[in-house]
């Protein structure tokens, strides 16, 4: 299988901030790559370089064999970009936004109109088609933005945090849209801060932190390595904490953390939960709370890097 995107040693600096510090990526044609990382990891910077909006300071990247710097114009006709913040013209209607893009990429008026109507229908925006985009909700704006990046039927789609800020229902709708596109053969590069999103959509995941790739693999590989789920146990009596700590540690074969009388550990096997319940029961520990949930980014980071995903202080705009 060939690669749709190949990036080697991408470096981007903003003054003294190193946004990307030698990032390598490869996305197989027709697959979904999830780029997972906390705030300030460099996700947007990477996407902008691959979309020809930024030049890397070092390294190179190709899209279907075309260099993103030297052959930028050709790359642009292959790629659709949905940025982190919806980039629709708020003073135009949904139809006009899509019409503008269709015309810009060389469609006839008739084709552009038909394409706009089709996309608006696909994204449940037909009712709002003739309203200015400034009256749209956040979810509608996102969908219009995504529709805008699909006007030219790109073979490659970049989605920069497509569901950040969406409510759970809108989020699941967005996932469905992405799945449909992938079924149509579109190659997708998607950035996210959510492990479950990458898990749901991606064929492969790379985790980046401080501008470096710190882990990569299929979701299954990554989960087995990091613990995709988190077990939290709170004994009724805090004096039982040491017992809970040792039971959880033994079952999960890890070093659990204690936070506010709750013992927290990453779990890689489904059997861990019943095992913990049984052993605590045997030890006659009364449990006030016992939960198993999807790990947060923070917890994945902790197990990958040994440090928490600290928030990089925002660098003031130049």
């Amino acid at each position, binding site marked *: 299988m060939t690669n749709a995107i190949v990036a080697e040693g991408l470096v981007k600096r903003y003054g003294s901030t190193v946004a990307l510090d030698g990032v390598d990526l490869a996305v197989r044609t027709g697959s979904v790559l999830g780029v997972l990382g906390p705030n300030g990891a460099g996700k947007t910077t990477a996407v902008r370089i691959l*979309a020809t*909006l930024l030049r890397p300071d070092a390294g190179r990247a190709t899209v279907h064999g075309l260099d993103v710097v030297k052959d930028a114009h050709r790359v642009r006709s292959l790629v659709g970009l949905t940025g982190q913040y*919806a980039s629709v013209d708020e003073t135009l209607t949904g139809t*006009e936004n899509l019409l*503008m*893009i269709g015309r*810009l990429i060389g469609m006839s008026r008739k084709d552009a109109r038909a394409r706009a109507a089709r996309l608006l229908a696909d994204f449940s925006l037909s009712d709002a088609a003739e309203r200015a985009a400034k009256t749209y909700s956040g979810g509608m704006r996102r969908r219009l933005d995504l529709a805008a990046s699909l006007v030219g039927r790109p073979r490659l789609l970049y989605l920069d945090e497509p569901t950040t800020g969406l409510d759970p229902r809108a989020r699941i709708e967005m996932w469905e849209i992405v799945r449909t596109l992938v079924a149509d053969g579109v190659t997708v590069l998607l950035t996210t801060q959510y492990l479950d999103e990458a898990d749901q959509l991606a064929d492969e995941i790379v985790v980046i932190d401080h501008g470096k790739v710190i882990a990569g693999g299929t979701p299954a590989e990554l989960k087995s390595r990091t613990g995709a789920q988190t077990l939290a146990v709170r004994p009724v009596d805090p004096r039982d904490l040491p017992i809970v700590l040792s039971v959880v540690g033994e079952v999960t074969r890890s070093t659990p953390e204690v936070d506010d009388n709750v013992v927290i550990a990453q779990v890689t096997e489904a059997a861990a939960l019943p095992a913990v319940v049984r052993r605590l029961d045997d030890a006659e520990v009364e449990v006030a709370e016992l939960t198993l949930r999807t790990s947060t980014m923070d917890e994945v980071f902790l197990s990958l890097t040994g440090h928490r995903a600290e928030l990089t202080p925002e660098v003031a705009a130049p």
Partner: protein
Amino acid sequence: MSAVALPARPGAVAGVKNTLTLAWRSLVSVKHNPMELLDLSIQPIMFLLLFTYTLGGAISGSTSAYLSFALPGILVQNTIFATMNIGILLNTDLTKGVFDRLRSLPIARWAPLAGRIAADTVKQAWSVALLLGVGMLLGFRVQTSFWGVLGTFGLMIVFCLAIAWVAVLVGVIASEPDKVQIFMFAVVFPLTFTSNIFAPTESMPHWLQHWVKINPVTIVADAVRGMLNGGPVATPVIQSLLWAAGFLVVFAPLAVWRFRRRV
């Protein structure tokens, strides 16, 4: 693969088409943005009515005499204000990410800027026609000929194309649209009022007259007066064109340089 068959960069024809599409977009958006329509129509008419009826008698002895003095000036003032809107609109595109969307498309690099400016020219022509029309309703009469009116349109558009680069520069530098607005009030307002568009130069304090006489707003207003009312034309028109050339030579490269750095 078909990718390689694509042109390496957009041709000039494609670039012009892109520009027209983006100009269309600028004009259509006025429909949904009543504030802009207000700026383009009601504001100049309001200035015209207010100044004619409140100051006309005091300054020129009669409202009709004042109208022939003030209308050309208000045309110029309106051109300047409306052109500054380019800065606000451009800045909105930059801060709202619309520019990123445009730059991710296979279109000519210069088309977004050219589209804005082309649309602005159309808006200017509309404002000039509107002001002339309302002026005529109020009793303004063109004392020259059709060529004077055409010359007025021409000069307004040339002047607007030149100062558009100031607006582009401010729009590119400012971190948000509101800052562009502040620039308008802090720089453009005093600039247009320290001219002879509303009151004759001789009525002002001596020290101010020095500036008023060389203020491009005065010079362009004098040129338009000449073309619509009769009187000297050649000198103010040549001086206006020199000013326009000056704006172009200084601000166009600066604006393009900053623009490239930002996007």
